[in-house]
């Protein structure tokens, strides 16, 4: 989450949240404070900018419709709610197999470009490869990896988002890292020398700009 220099005190943030239930201006301020975080989370889950923007839009439109009945009291509650909504919206987005396929194709294509630029340092981790590996994890593992690995949220907060205990979140992350490492090592081994994939798809998707 991005909180600027003018971030309000916890008391002010609570007041802002209370007002946001009935006052558009206050809701707008909350939006300004949390848009970046939600968008970034969506980028890390969805790879493509367009997909991330679509899902970010769904998240905040849902917030606009439901803020009046939101039961949380603190800005932390609000942030956890945002991530929970974002997680569900991402899952809903990915449920369409065609979308998932498009994202993976874009990542694969971008990965090939990246690999061709870094032939002399092939052990370096690149984002498209990592994204492909993350996409192979379970939904829960993907959420934890994104929130912990990219957003650097504390386990206590991830636990609230996922409705589990902090220790469980820690275990999920640890297991996910092992799986990721295994997948990446496997894909690095098999990808070297493989230059054929997705040649026909090259121009059909706009890849993530690097």
């Amino acid at each position: 989450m991005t909180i600027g220099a003018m971030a309000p005190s916890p008391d002010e943030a609570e007041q802002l949240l209370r007002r946001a239930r009935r006052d558009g201006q206050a809701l707008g301020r909350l939006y300004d404070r949390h848009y970046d975080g939600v968008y970034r989370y969506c980028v890390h889950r969805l790879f493509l900018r367009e997909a991330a923007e679509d899902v970010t839009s769904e998240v905040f439109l849902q917030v606009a419709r439901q803020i009046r009945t939101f039961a949380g009291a603190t800005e932390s509650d609000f942030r956890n709610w945002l991530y929970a909504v974002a997680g569900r919206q991402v899952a809903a987005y990915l449920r369409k197999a065609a979308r998932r396929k498009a994202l993976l194709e874009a990542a694969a294509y971008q990965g090939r470009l990246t690999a061709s630029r870094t032939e002399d340092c092939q052990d370096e981790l690149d984002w498209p490869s990592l994204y492909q590996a993350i996409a192979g994890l379970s939904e829960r593992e993907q959420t934890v990896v994104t929130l912990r690995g990219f957003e650097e949220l504390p386990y206590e907060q991830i636990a609230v988002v996922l409705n589990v205990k902090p220790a469980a979140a820690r275990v999920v992350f640890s297991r996910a890292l092992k799986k990721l490492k295994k997948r990446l090592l496997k894909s690095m081994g098999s990808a070297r020398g493989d230059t054929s994939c997705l040649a026909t798809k090259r121009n059909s998707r706009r890849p993530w700009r690097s």
Partner: protein
Amino acid sequence: MFGNEEEFAKAVAKLNVDAQPRPEHQAELRRRMLAAFDQARGETAAPGGSRLAGLRSLIVNRRFMRVAAAAAIVVCVVGVVAVWNPTARSGVALAAVRQRVEQARTACFKLTWYRDGKVEYSGEVKWREPGLMRWEVPGMITIYDWDKGKFVVLMTEARTAHSAEISDLDNPYHRDWIHNLKEMIGSESAEEAGRKDVSGPQAKGWRFREEGWVCTIWADAKTAELLEVEFQTGNTRMVMSEFVLDAELEESLFSLTPPADYACHTQLQMKAGEPAEKDLILLVRVWAMGNGDAFPDSLDARQFSSAAAKVDWTRLEIKSQEEAKQVQDAISRGFWFLYSAYDRTYAGKGVRLGQKETPVFWYRPGKSKNYRVIYADLSVKDVPPEELPKTRSETQPAPAGD
């Protein structure tokens, strides 16, 4: 390659991920979000534009009645949900069950209503997040999108579709059943309900008590899989059973677009508003007017459309389209109020509209100890439980139909 969390963090820090948002998108979404907020709040909602050609046609072409009947169908099925009354979270004893339910992304279950120990109706429910639900009973399929407040009712024999969009669904009870189930499991008020066999597995139960309702949740004592949820109030019992969580459910099951061979009869827009007793009084008045000034045998939504078709609407002194729309909305809210009220009794069978001192309906509002009794002359009184009429002929309306 990373071997632990710290190394992973370092690897991630070196990645070239462009996560910088576009200011255009941020600004555009801000505008859309605030517009959606205003609309949800009703501030900028456009005044309900009537689709009726004119007051005369309103009265004579029966379109109004069709709309009201569709409203009856929709609010009937929606209203059932309002019996749920979630409480605060934090239960510990139910943690395993709750975790299992909380993780579910789809759910299928059987829903059965009992009255006086007999099955009144039974149907299949499919649920998928976020807030999508499909409920099938013989002759009728209802599909909900709770987030958008959109519903469509498909009458499978008549091949007709009735769609509705209900704004202001801000009551927390107006959510899909699984959402509310998730809220309920974990309630502080949970108490142990012992064990029983539920279609094989030994089940462990927890009980919740909520203002006239008792809810019992049964889960597999070994695996914490949800097996059955029961609701009981008065002589009415609702059972959700045969749960299957996380089954693959096609998106098309939740499509709000009626099949091509269905005739779209009504497209209703209404505000949930704040249903009030006066709306219910208007509903039973109109119902009686369409029934030869006699109250119907039961408040069965399936019978309302035929009664409404016989109403002489001029008796309501409707002077404008706007007033007609208000009456229509009030009837819709009346159904909402009717099906949202638990602990209710209908005793209007054989009673003439206008009869004094003759109770036709009573219910207990919220946390009140006393009941509100509506008489045949449409007057209302507060009555303590011990002074209620003895008749309890009709406590639960049948499901909606055409």
